[in-house]
């Protein structure tokens, strides 16, 4: 109980201080682009808690969920292939590095050609960003499998899918989780970017619309919503991670009680 209280305390202390600083520092602001926090807070409910929640936020989150999921699966699958096979790695690495460095505004026209301007394209934009942290970390994780464990699997003839799961994926899982964590916030960013193109609704679209329409308090409220979304998703992520990586945290922190 006191543990939960302490956690909440830790989670809230700094934000409360920062919000207070922001609130008072911006209180008398006449700067168009840095409106008083009180105004941002005042427009928040009208901006987001109306129909926008269903019309803009939900579709965005759905696309984010799908894109993130696809990126996870693809990143892990590709990462396993590349991490465990040196020829595959040698052939694909420069190409992937090439693709990785292409900025979304240039990538989007191509995506439009192959995937149209609908949700598929936006999901692909999200995938195109979330993929890399997962992929790179998976490759590293696969390559760092403990050689003694690998030998154990070889001698006991643990092979095929069982080997992939019980040896490769599980031992790479801390790295995969690192990548997944990284990808989560990249995903939110790309959710916004994807809605810069061919959109007429969505959270990112709304934020950009506010920006272009010079409705700066509303834009700020959108930025805050994005941040809150990040916090919420990270809490969910931590819950999942706690289950998936229980063994890892146990083995890393176990006897550390000082």
């Amino acid at each position, binding site marked *: 109980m006191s543990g939960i209280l302490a956690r909440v305390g830790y989670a809230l202390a700094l934000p409360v201080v920062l919000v207070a600083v922001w609130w008072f520092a911006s209180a008398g602001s006449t700067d168009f682009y840095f409106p008083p926090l009180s105004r941002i807070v005042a427009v928040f409910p009208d901006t987001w808690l109306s129909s926008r929640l269903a019309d803009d936020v939900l579709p965005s989150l759905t696309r984010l969920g799908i894109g993130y999921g696809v990126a996870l699966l693809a990143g892990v699958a590709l990462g396993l292939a590349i991490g465990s096979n040196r020829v595959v790695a040698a052939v694909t690495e420069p190409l992937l590095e090439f693709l990785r460095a292409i900025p979304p505004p240039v990538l989007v*026209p191509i995506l*439009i*050609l192959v995937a149209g*301007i609908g949700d598929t394209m936006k999901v692909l934009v999200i995938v195109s960003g979330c993929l890399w942290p997962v992929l790179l970390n998976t490759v590293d994780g696969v390559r760092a499998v403990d050689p003694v464990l690998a030998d154990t699997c070889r001698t006991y003839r643990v092979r095929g899918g069982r080997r992939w799961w019980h040896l490769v994926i599980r031992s790479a899982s801390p790295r995969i989780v690192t990548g997944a964590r990284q990808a989560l916030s990249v995903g939110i960013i790309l959710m916004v970017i994807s809605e810069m*193109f*061919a959109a007429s609704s969505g959270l990112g679209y709304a934020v950009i619309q506010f920006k*272009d329409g*010079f409705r700066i308090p509303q834009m700020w409220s959108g930025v805050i919503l994005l941040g809150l979304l990040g916090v919420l998703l990270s809490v969910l992520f931590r819950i999942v991670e706690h289950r998936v990586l229980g063994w890892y945290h146990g083995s890393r922190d176990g006897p550390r009680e000082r």
Partner: protein
Amino acid sequence: ACGADGADEPAPGQPDKVTVGVIPILDVAPIYLGIEQGFFDERDIEITLEQAEGGAAIVPAVVSGQYQFGFSNMVSLLIASSEGLPVKVVSNGNNSTGVDGEDFAALMVKADSPIRTAADLEGKTVAANTLQNIVDTSVRQSVRKAGGDPTKVRFTALPFPDQPAALASGQVDAVFVVEPFQQAVLAEGGRAIASSYVDAAPNLTVAAYFTSQQLLADNPDLATRFTEAMAESLSYADSHPDEVRTIIASYTEIAPEVIEKLTLPTFPPEVNRESVATLADLALEDGLLSKAADVDALLP
């Protein structure tokens, strides 16, 4: 935040160093031409042009004093001013040709499209470079004029460069493109169904040069000189289309054979106040503005 620290105090005998934010499109040809012709030098203005892809960066840069002047479409300026942003138009930018079917921008469909008039767009999807702005407002007016219900048209945001491909592959039913993309669509066999800028208002002022209220208060003389130089540049451009085409080739990468075919906007020296007022009404009707704009406060 940064007030006037961007504008250099005019030292006696020294030209004013001025930065102007522009978009690398043909609409801004007059300022390039004016610089070349020395219209700004004559007035002790030394201009640096900064190119940005869209208006996103120009308005804040001007308001904060990082740029002294900027180029923006009229609706953005109307919205900005009605939202309380201290901007002020100092010069006309460019206008539609005013000739239906022969403008520098058009609402276009594919060759084999069943869509004949803007009214047929009901229930269809139209690409616009940005939403809630001059393009969709003008297109809605075309729909209205053709007897359709503009609320039944779906708009989707798509940058101009991506529109021809989206149209060709059937992703959207119609596009609203400016030059040189009008030529690109035509080259694919596309067809114009309306000249929306012409439909919106006669001789519509599409874009303008603006500055901040701050600069206007601090250095009214500079603003006046800029306005004069611009007026001269605009007139010159309007009467020398071939030089406009040549100068476009210098700051864009439009292919020479396309440049020849481009339909140029017109460059009257004065803002068409009436057209701006009409535009402001349309913007209000379409919900772009939350309250009626004070056109006089915005325009010089």
